[in-house]
């Protein structure tokens, strides 16, 4: 091999190299595009001429760094770009959208449940009134539970295959759980809210799941100071369902748990206790190391 990188030939012209003035004008960026391409085609093959071009090692390293960053970096999906547009920092947007436990499987199941509720609601409009009330009650009972189910699926050894890898990081514990719970809550409320108008019932009653939803999420997070997320979510959801049915039976009104007095209770829980809870929660020693 000669210093141009080409195989030696038995005969022929001596290897050509960039004249000093041409190399100087190239380094100064004073060549026209055609000349630049020609010089670069030669530089690709000629180590001697490459070495003769003055270069700032720091600038070169930084350039390669930028190129590598563009080549390697994970492609931002629609959700990540949307979150960034809404002002969420890139690393948090990445964390939320890349988290497998918050991914398509869970969102798909939530959407499927809600679609089923809407279809049942639409179908019941042509059926007997008791059927319509039953569909609405089922929806109101189920909608607040969906976020707690999502939170249960978002954090912990049994539901997250990468939990042990993450558990020794500074973000693990309350910070990560809160972040994921917030993402779940916002997503579930948005999806449920989109479905609510299609349900049979007065607008006030159809929207009566919002405050219970926030209250249940607050209760689940509070309980995780004592027990892992999954039993906390299961316990709170079971208590909610039992309370709705028992209170409805006792008051002789299936929707008693969704009337204004009960809503006031949920509002107090959600709007007054939730901020206090979250502030204290981050400082709590979260069920010892998990």
């Amino acid at each position, binding site marked *: 091999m000669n210093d141009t990188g080409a195989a030696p030939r038995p005969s022929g012209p001596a290897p050509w190299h960039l004249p000093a003035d041409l190399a100087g004008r190239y380094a100064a960026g004073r060549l026209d595009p055609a000349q630049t391409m020609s010089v670069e085609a030669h530089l690709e093959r000629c180590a001697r001429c490459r070495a003769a071009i003055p270069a700032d090692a720091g600038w070169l390293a930084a350039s390669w760094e930028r190129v590598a960053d563009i080549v390697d*970096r994970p492609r931002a999906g629609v959700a990540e770009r949307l979150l960034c547009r809404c002002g969420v920092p890139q690393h948090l947007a*990445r964390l939320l959208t890349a988290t497998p436990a918050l991914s398509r499987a869970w969102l798909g199941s939530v959407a499927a449940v809600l679609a089923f509720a809407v279809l049942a609601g639409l179908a019941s409009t042509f059926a007997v009134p008791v059927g319509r009330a039953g569909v609405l009650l089922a929806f109101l009972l189920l909608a607040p539970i969906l976020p707690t189910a999502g939170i249960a699926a978002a954090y912990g050894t049994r539901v997250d295959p990468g939990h042990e890898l993450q558990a020794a990081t500074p973000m693990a514990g309350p910070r990560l759980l809160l972040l994921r719970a917030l993402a779940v809550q916002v997503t579930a409320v948005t999806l449920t809210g989109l479905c609510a108008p299609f349900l049979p019932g007065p607008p006030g009653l159809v929207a009566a799941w919002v405050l219970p939803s926030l209250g249940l999420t607050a209760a689940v997070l509070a309980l995780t100071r004592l027990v892992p997320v999954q039993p906390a979510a299961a316990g709170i959801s079971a208590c909610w369902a039992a309370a709705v049915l028992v209170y409805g039976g006792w008051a002789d009104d299936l929707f008693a748990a969704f009337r204004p007095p009960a809503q006031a209770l949920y509002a107090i829980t959600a709007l007054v206790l939730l901020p206090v809870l979250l502030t204290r929660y981050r400082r709590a020693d979260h069920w010892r190391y998990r």
Partner: protein
Amino acid sequence: MNPTDTTVGVRALTKRYGSRTALAALDLAAGPGVTGLLGPNGAGKTTLLRCLATTLAPDGGEIRLLGLDPADRAQRTELRRRLGYLPQDPGFYPHFTAFELVDYIAILKEMNDRRARHAEVRRVLAEVDLADRAATKVRKLSGGMKQRLAFAQTLLGDPELLILDEPTVGLDPEQRMRFRALVSRLGEGRTVLLSTHQTEDVAALCERVVVVGGGRAVFTGTPAGLAATAAGQVWLSERPPAGRQLFWRTADGRYRALGERPEGAEPAVPGVEDGYLLLLGDTAAVAA
């Protein structure tokens, strides 16, 4: 060990799972350099390392790591910023690329600046020879590559304390040699704690060795010291020993026996494995 050199201090550590005792008042001290934990399955190595990595709370005893107390929430968070942990069974997200997985852990390690974080991800992937696999999906990596990928994430942020649970599992001989070279280099000036079944790894890598059995540290010292405990109890013979002592057939067709001298046997130079097997007896032999 000089107390001022101690970066890992464990005193009377206990952990129970129901009626089973995993750690029974275990004491341990380690400083900069590589310390190996040897022990059979169920000896308590993984439980000990999980407690040290702050992913599992002990039932009793004290832990001090890098001068911090992991029982305190704020100190635990600070400690997590300064340690790297390779679990025995690291879970993976198969649809991630190698780069995405390490990038994800880097975010959890509070590396918020994207450019700096990506540069760090490339650095640690290069450390484990996976730079050219950065864009490969995790599900398409071999077992050894996955193990190296899990190891790469422990190096994020250049931690002062590395806790590695069975790091050589799944590595072929060449990868194991490279791994030993890397860990030896990392052990210069920082504390590395690793558990292994491989006595060869301990002999080649570790400045100190702790043999764990029944939830306690039954030996603490150097690998040479562990080998020395078997002095006068290792024998080579042409025929298998008649008694019930530990023995195995070697590559040259002779029998290596531990304990009482078999008839016609000649003494052999003891190694780390001999000391380990004699210390833990049948338990270790069955696990090995």
